[in-house]
Structures are given as structure tokens and as C-alpha cells.
């Protein structure tokens, strides 16, 4: 019993310490004089490798999610003879919840794990140390561009996700099940509010982008420099960022529903 309490205490102290380290790490990465001329090419390169390479998985996942929501929604709505409302149902569920959350989960699996593995490998092979010995700060040269690229890409990917998912719903609802196109679009237009729905979804995706990339780059930077260490860090990135996204989603939804 006592040892269990001791263990709990020790692990919670350790957790606090780790969160503190991660916070300091974030501050050191972000608080510095911007160097746009040298930084911009680095950022663009990372935007390409983080954002563009995540596009295929986002596109495929979003079209299927839109189609599934369309099918399920049609089945339920037909019981109430309200199948014209399908456009509204697809758009609201995707823009408010499914878009930001699923895109963030996929992003954590595709880009987050790749970031952790890449940075962890650079640490293991002493590339970060050699950069430091050359008088170049790896936080600026390696971490910062990747961090900003993640924060910028996820909201953009989320928007693409939402748009494609709505198209997926349209394909099922209108082309396959025969709902009237005009009803589909006009019901959607009438019920989706820019501020309440679209903007809130984008805010969520910005927060998720921040959290997922933060966890990914920190786990990479704090990797234990062995092969096993890299694999553990990659696993941790996916687990922690998925849990953080789902937990944070609840908190944000609660705040937004609470009349914000």
C-alpha cells in the first residue's frame, strides 16, 4: 500500500517535471529574434514535407468519412422523412467535430510520428550535437521550422478535410440516394453559421496543431539516444498526442457550447 502511494507520488512528480521541461523547451524554441531571410526557406521546406505529404491520407480519410456520415445520416433522417436535412447534418458534424479531431489524429499518426523519428534519429547520430558544436542552435535550425510548419499545416489540412468530407456526403446523398441538390445545399447554407461552426472548428484545429507538433518535437528532442529509445518516443508521440487531442476537444467544445 505504502509503496503504491510512493510510486504514485514519484510518477506524478516526474510528470510535473516533464511538463516543465517541455514548457521550457517550447519557450526556448519560440521566444527568439525572427530571422526571416534564413528562416523562410527552412519553413517552406518543412511545410512541404509535413503538410503536403500528409495530404493523401487526409484526402482519402475525409472522402470516406463524408460518405459514411452521409449513409448513416440518410438512414436515420429517412425515419423522420427529413432526408433533405442531410446536407446540414453532414456539414455540422464534420465542421464542428469530425474534421478537426480526425484530421488531428491522422496528422499525429502521419506527421507527428515522422517528426519524432526524424529528430530522434538526428539526436542519436549526434547531428544535433555537432550542430551545437558548430555554433548553430538546433532549436532554431531544426526544431522551430518544424514546429511552425506543423502549427500552420494542420488548420489548412482540416479545412481541406471538411470540404472534401462535405463533397463525400454530397456524392452519397445526391448522386446515389437521390436527394434534391438544391435542398442539400440550401439547408446546409441556412444552418451552418460562420462564427459558431466554421470558426470554432478552425480554432480547434489550431489548438490541436499546436499540441500535436509540440508533443512530437519535444519527444524527438528528448529521445533517449538509442534505437529502442527512438521507437519508444515515436509510440509516445502518437499515444500522448491522440489522448491530448481527444481530451482537449472535450474542453474546447465545453467552452464553445457554453455560449462563447
Amino acid at each position: 500500500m505504502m509503496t503504491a502511494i510512493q510510486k504514485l507520488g514519484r510518477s506524478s512528480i516526474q510528470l510535473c517535471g516533464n511538463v516543465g521541461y517541455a514548457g521550457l523547451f517550447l519557450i526556448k524554441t519560440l521566444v527568439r529574434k525572427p530571422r526571416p531571410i534564413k528562416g523562410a526557406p527552412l519553413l517552406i521546406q518543412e511545410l512541404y514535407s509535413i503538410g503536403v505529404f500528409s495530404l493523401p491520407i487526409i484526402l482519402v480519410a475525409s472522402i470516406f468519412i463524408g460518405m459514411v456520415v452521409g449513409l448513416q445520416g440518410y438512414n436515420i433522417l429517412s425515419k423522420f422523412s427529413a432526408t433533405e436535412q442531410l446536407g446540414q447534418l453532414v456539414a455540422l458534424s464534420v465542421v464542428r467535430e469530425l474534421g478537426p479531431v480526425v484530421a488531428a489524429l491522422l496528422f499525429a499518426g502521419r506527421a507527428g510520428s515522422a517528426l519524432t523519428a526524424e529528430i530522434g534519429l538526428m539526436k542519436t547520430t549526434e547531428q544535433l550535437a555537432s550542430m551545437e558544436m558548430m555554433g548553430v542552435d538546433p532549436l532554431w535550425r531544426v526544431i522551430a521550422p518544424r514546429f511552425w510548419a506543423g502549427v500552420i499545416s494542420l488548420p489548412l489540412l482540416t479545412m481541406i478535410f471538411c470540404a472534401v468530407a462535405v463533397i463525400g456526403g454530397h456524392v452519397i446523398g445526391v448522386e446515389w440516394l437521390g436527394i434534391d441538390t438544391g435542398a442539400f445545399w440550401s439547408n446546409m447554407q441556412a444552418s451552418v453559421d460562420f462564427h459558431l461552426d466554421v470558426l470554432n472548428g478552425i480554432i480547434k484545429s489550431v489548438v490541436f496543431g499546436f499540441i500535436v507538433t509540440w508533443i512530437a518535437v519535444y519527444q524527438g528532442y528528448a529521445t533517449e539516444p538509442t534505437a529502442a529509445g527512438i521507437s519508444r518516443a515515436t509510440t509516445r508521440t502518437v499515444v500522448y498526442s491522440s489522448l491530448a487531442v481527444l481530451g482537449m476537444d472535450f474542453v474546447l467544445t465545453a467552452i464553445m457550447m457554453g455560449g462563447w
Partner: protein
Amino acid sequence: MIQQREGLGDLIRIDHLTFQRNQQCIFDDISLTIPKGQITAIMGPSGTGKTTLLQLIGGRLKPNAGHLYYENQCIDGMSNKQLLRLREKMGMLFQNSALFTNLTVYDNVAFPMREHTQLPESFIKDLVLMKLEAVGLRGARNLMPSQLSGGMSRRVALARAMALDPELIMYDEPFTGQDPISMGVLVKLIKHLNDALGMTSIIVSHDVPETASIADYIYILAQGKIVGQGTPQQLADCQDPHVLQFMHGLPDGVVPFHYPAPDYRQDLLASCKEREAS
């Protein structure tokens, strides 16, 4: 303990340095000097913290007690900004080369120049080709690090370490895992670069004959202390048991062959008794 040797003075002075990691004492009150323009070797068995010493000189670690000086500037008292500037004057060759795997050989060597200078690209190109020519790899400039052999990547790392013409270059185990030919190439290169460019070199190594053939002065570390020092010739003749065992590679001596264990006979008898009991 510190002997003044002839020459241009000291580039690095280590003064009563003590360093601990995880309660374990890595260095216990050691003092040594690295004179300018010479090759100084720091040798010792694996795990005596030779690489740690280089990290302390580079300011990546802070000592628990004592100080390190670079031309009378105290390294352990510097701010991060000063350290970054100091490191522009140092080059370091890492044990596993540490080339940037996503850049070509050419870009690897150009990296420090692009980061620290405002030179136009045409000028950088000339400099990179000169550095690569010095290590004999001008023809390999478009290869990726994964396409290089171990000896080649170490030579590229050497070219990168001297990209900014540093005053001090530190070699961390430069000969480990090299075949005899590339070993010979590296020995020749280190000696040649040191003499031709007037650099100061520190070699951390446990390859005795190769290091002894080029070093001007050798320190031998063991168990956190300097157990021997002198020119290669002096050390070869030295009768101190630590130095004797290390320089001649004897399997048993001050550093025992056996890891500490209970008495052999009792250990065996104990298992016999267990068998009888069961």
C-alpha cells in the same frame, strides 16, 4: 602537476576540474594544458570520460568544480551566446561523423559557412572545393552521406570541421572502426592539417600506436585521474603500472581482467549446496 612546455603558450587550460554525472565521479580534480599548434592526445580505457572532456571544453557540459579556460576566457562562465561564438573557433570531429543525412557532401561542408558568414555562393563553392580537395574527396561532392564508406564520411566530417578554419580541432575517437588504409589516411591527414594550417589538435583515442605516432604530448586518464603524461617516447619507457598496462595492452594488471565478484570457489560451492538441498 602542470608542466610548462615550450611553444606559443596554451590554448586551453583546465584547472582542478571535477565533474560528476549521476553521483558517479567522472573527473576528480584534474589539471592539464593544451599548447597551441601541437597535437595533444588524451588517452585512456573506454568509459573514462574522454568524450565528456571534449564536451566540457566545448561548453556543452558544466563542471561541478574547477574551471576551463580558452585563451584565459573562462568557458564554464560563458553565456549561451558567447558559447555559440566561441564554438565558431572550434571544430569537432564526432565519433560517428555526425554528417547531416539529408544534405549532400557539398552542402554538409558548406553548412557552417552558410550559417556563419555572409559570403556569396560562388565564394563558398571555391572554399568547399578547397576543403574537399584537402581530404581527397572533391570528386564525391554530390554523394549523399549514406553512399559513403566509414572512412570517407569521417574525412567529409573532417572537411566540415575545418570549414571555418578553426583554431582548435577536436577529434573524438578518429580511428575507431577504420580499416588499415583509411586509418593511415586519417593519421596522415591529422598530422598534415595540424602542421600546414597551424591549428591546435586534441585527439581523444585508445588506439595507442596510431595516436602515439603523431601526438606531441599524451595524457593518460584512468578512473578520473591523470595517471601518466609525457611525450610518446617517455610514456613507452614509463614503468608506472597504469601506463604500462595501457600502452602495451596487457590483459591483466591494475585494471583487472575480472569484474568484481565474490570468491570463485564459494560461488561454485554455493550452487552445489543448492543442488543438494533440492
